[in-house]
């Protein structure tokens, strides 16, 4: 016989697993520190590549000037500028993603807690029906 109570629970769980839960369940495989650290590293890496690309484009844009003044350029101050902006960029991106991904992880944990509550209820249903039969 069909157990509607069970079907309803299972439907809810299945829908959650299929949609929003997919990411939550994936996140639950990580510790918070591991997950956040990995994401921050990824952000810093992508910011670095983006910064490099912008730098390359600026260099290409100023190519004529650079070649003309190749000997007289003050490489030390130029290098300091580039490094300074780089440090600023990765600080912003690193801190930003630290905050963002920590919040995201916490939010997904909260949703997951509800999911586990329903799972527990389902388990109880199973145990009850097993005792009956």
């Amino acid at each position, binding site marked *: 016989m*069909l*157990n*509607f*109570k*069970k*079907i*309803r629970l*299972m*439907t*809810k*769980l*299945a*829908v959650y697993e*299929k*949609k929003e839960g997919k990411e939550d369940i994936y996140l639950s495989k990580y510790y918070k520190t591991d997950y956040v650290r990995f994401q921050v590293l990824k952000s810093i890496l*992508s*910011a670095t*590549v*983006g910064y490099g*690309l*912008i730098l*390359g*484009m600026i260099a*290409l*844009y100023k*190519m*004529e000037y650079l070649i003309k003044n190749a000997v007289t350029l003050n490489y030390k101050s130029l290098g300091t500028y580039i490094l300074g902006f780089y440090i600023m960029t990765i600080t912003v991106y690193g801190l930003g*993603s630290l905050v*963002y991904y920590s919040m995201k992880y916490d939010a997904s944990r909260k949703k997951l807690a*509800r999911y586990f509550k*329903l799972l527990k209820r389902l388990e109880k249903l199973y145990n009850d029906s097993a005792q009956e039969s």
Partner: protein
Amino acid sequence: MLPLLELRERVKNFYQRYDMYLLPVIKFIFALVVFCLINKDIGYDARLKSLPIVLGISLLSAFTPSAVMVLLATIISVLHVYFISPILSIMIIAILMILYLLFIRYTPKLGYVLLAIPILFQLKIPYMLPILLGLVSTPVAMIPTSCGVIIYFLFQIIKNAVTMQNNISIEDILQLYTYVVDSLIGNRQMIMTIVIFSLIIMATYFIRKMSFNYAFEISILAGGLLSILGFLISYLILNRADQILSMIIGSIVSAGLVYIIHFFKLTLDYSRVEHATFEDDVYYYYVKAVPKATVTISEVNIRHYNVKNSKAREFSDPDTDESDIYNFEEDNDN
């Protein structure tokens, strides 16, 4: 108003019934429009314009997530430019990479905005998107919107640069490159568009969040007015009076379209039908879960308090007791 509400109900029922087939069809038509517009605007490569290819990629994007369509559209656009000028396509890729690495990768769910902005610009109603995003999203949507505007103007510049480009020497490449960068950075219209779109998103978002009657409708109105005012000022500054009329009409049409979407969205959103498959030791279940959207919020409350009423029993399953109804309500509230 009543016939309209009836129509909405009918559309909703139709959608609930056939959503499995309807969704790919809508996506297919949308993809077809997108690829045709791209081909019309920058269709340099005749091979990519052929009907089988266009139909093929549209079909592909109908059955895949929306991110695939965005990617396909990007690839097609770059290939078109590559056909006529490899140098320019490299520039496009570099700029797109920068946009992706620094901004777009943080808003993966709004990727379609990047595609929608240039497309809506083609259709002369780009004002629609910021109003809509203000309604359904958060101010974070400013990031992909700005990137979409940049992409649209980038391709406009590329279209000009293509005509400039002739035989290829190192000198020419550099000149071409400086032209593209100069016109992208010095593009005042682009910067103003970004600012105005961001303002529209903010305004519609914050007005929508306020708690007074008709907040949604007023926020749409405010968005439309803001777009008319903002672009009026920007066009007057830029001396582009010839575009004012089409802008005003476009803004009004956009606000109207957003209102229509908003009107249907409320039902369509809540009537999202879910298909789930699962099994236990005895059965396989193929469940189609249809939300009870016809019950408005006030009626839900009535049902909640009159649980012992016979009408409430109609809604509940024969196999459940009353305590379970309470549990169910509680879960939905979460």
